[in-house]
């Protein structure tokens, strides 16, 4: 069993996955932040590989990516950081990024490096289902590197079944038609959507993300999925901080959620 499967086997609800941008606020902050987050009770982390043109991300994550790139973050540095961090924490480490980053690194080299340094799974929002199916599914499957696919309100039932068949990680339920960080609280329409998905009894566990920002939204989301992913709200909470203050802010943030 990989770390993702183990987590979902052990914990059926209230899973908190925190998104953080690698290289933000400072180039070397991510590893220590992950340790802080684990100690504070976070179940899983999703590490954003900063990208120059992050299409699916809202302003907050865009801005953090820009700073991370200015700080000098690269995939090689990130992989080194993860390799060093891996033995020091138990939680699953997921990488999130854009498919061009994988292509330029080289698909095979990217997958091999992920396995070598101990990445537990991938989220590549702009790798569409059809491309995954035609070219990449086998690669990820053979390497036993789970890939989590997105489902959003406009995804049809037939397509959700296809996504289920190709997803090897958890299902990422996009809370709303939104780029990250944009929704307010959960509304009627979203509740209907969550209920619709819940009624489909997916074979994979699912987490709800995009626009989940506080305890209230987290608790609500947890009723319909195994937990939720919080990104932009966390990035805002640590923005501009360093040293002890940074870790205190991260810890406080988690304590307000769980």
């Amino acid at each position, binding site marked *: 069993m990989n770390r993702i499967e183990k987590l979902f086997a052990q914990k059926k609800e209230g899973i908190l996955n925190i998104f953080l941008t690698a290289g933000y606020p400072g180039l070397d902050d991510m590893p220590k932040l992950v340790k802080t987050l684990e100690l504070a009770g976070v179940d899983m982390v999703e590490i954003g590989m900063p*990208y*120059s*043109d992050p*299409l*699916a991300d*809202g302003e907050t994550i*865009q801005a953090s990516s*820009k700073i991370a*790139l200015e700080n000098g973050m*690269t*995939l090689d540095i990130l992989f080194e950081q993860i390799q060093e961090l891996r033995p020091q924490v138990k939680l699953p480490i997921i990488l999130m990024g*854009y*498919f*061009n*980053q*994988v*292509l*330029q*690194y080289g698909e095979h080299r990217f997958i091999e490096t992920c396995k070598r340094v101990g990445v537990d799974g991938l989220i590549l*929002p*702009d*790798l*569409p*289902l*059809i*491309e995954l199916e*035609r070219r990449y599914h086998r690669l990820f499957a053979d390497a036993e590197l789970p890939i989590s*696919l*997105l*489902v*959003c309100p*406009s*995804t*049809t039932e037939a*397509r959700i079944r296809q996504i289920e068949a190709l997803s090897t990680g958890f299902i990422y339920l*996009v809370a709303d*038609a*939104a*780029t990250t960080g*944009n929704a307010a609280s959960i509304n009627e329409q979203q509740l209907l959507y969550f209920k619709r998905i819940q009624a489909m009894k997916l074979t994979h566990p699912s987490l709800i993300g995009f626009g989940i920002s506080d305890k209230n939204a987290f608790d609500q989301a947890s009723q319909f999925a195994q937990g939720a992913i919080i990104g932009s709200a966390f990035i805002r909470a640590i923005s501009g901080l360093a040293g002890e203050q940074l870790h205190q802010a991260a810890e406080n943030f988690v304590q307000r959620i769980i």
Partner: protein
Amino acid sequence: MIQLDEYGYYGKFGGAFVPEMLFSNVEELRKIYVDWIAEPDFQKEFQRLLRDYVGRPTPLFFAERLSEKYQTQIYLKREDLNHTGAHKINNTIGQILIAERLGKTRIIAETGAGQHGVATATVCALKGIRCIVYMGEVDILRQAPNVARMKMLGAEVRPAKSGSRTLKDATNEAIRDWIQNPDDTHYIIGSVVGPHPFPDMVARFQSVISLEMKKQLLEKTGKDYPDHLIACVGGGSNAAGAFYHYLNRKEVGLIAVEAAGEGIDSGKSAATSVLGTDGIIHGSRTLLMQTADGQIIEPHSISAGLDYPGIGPMHAHLIASGRAKAVAITDQEALQAGFELARLEGIIPALESAHAIAALDKLSFEKSEVVVINLSGRGDKDLETYMKFAPK
């Protein structure tokens, strides 16, 4: 054969690399666009608007003094004479008809030079549909007349403040807007870029350029094709339209003119076919300027419409396969060509189109050969830039 496959690829370039949030919109378009465009009712309305509103067909003008200078037979396809001053409106007319049929009530667009923004604002005014145009902050400053035109036409111009604050970033913002407003909004993309089916749909709407050209050339020269066909390439829509009916006619030399900016090796360039490598930008696998890590490099061109780090997948394929030849023109060369055309033919070209004119200097032709330059737009929007560099 230059042909699109069922997955939206020209050779290895194309596809639709969009997040799931955009899938249903892109898929909706993909399913209908070929059939709808072919429908007689659609064609009737499209042709009526191109004729009575846009002012098509645009003339094919024999440029006598320019021909004399370059010792060949040069014709200019006068897309600058379209309503709103560029080829961009051929596409916006087509897409607004699609949007209308889809029942969309809100239109978004990106713009670089502002020509596509103006063309979109124009068709939205014509149809009484709300219009929001994303434009890079840098471009808002350098193309002020077009910003004013969009506002007068009732569009809202939203500044793109990320990255290089030019066309690439405006496109990012438009895509983000579409992700957030999938139900009521249609995205009228301004070039043959973006996820499939946009490149092919835009190329089809722009193909009216080469359709007319065939007829006009036959009348004027006795054969329906030129020996050389030159067009500037930002994303590549005017070039796609000019090349369209000649793609599989080997006797026509296709020349795609890119912006070299301050020089290909200056670090301030937009010559994608030379500086670019295979990657993904705006949902399409194509050639783009990027670092080894896949970060997109901010381009530079004096011309806002060519200041883009990618090219459409069709052009990536044409160039990679050797079907089209790419020529890079610097800011200086384009400015000079703009003045040359003004003084020789009494036509002030858009800075984008001036790049195509400047390519004449880089190529050699037989005296009897027919050369067509697609004059994609007029230079009114660029007067301030031209005046800064005016010869004394």
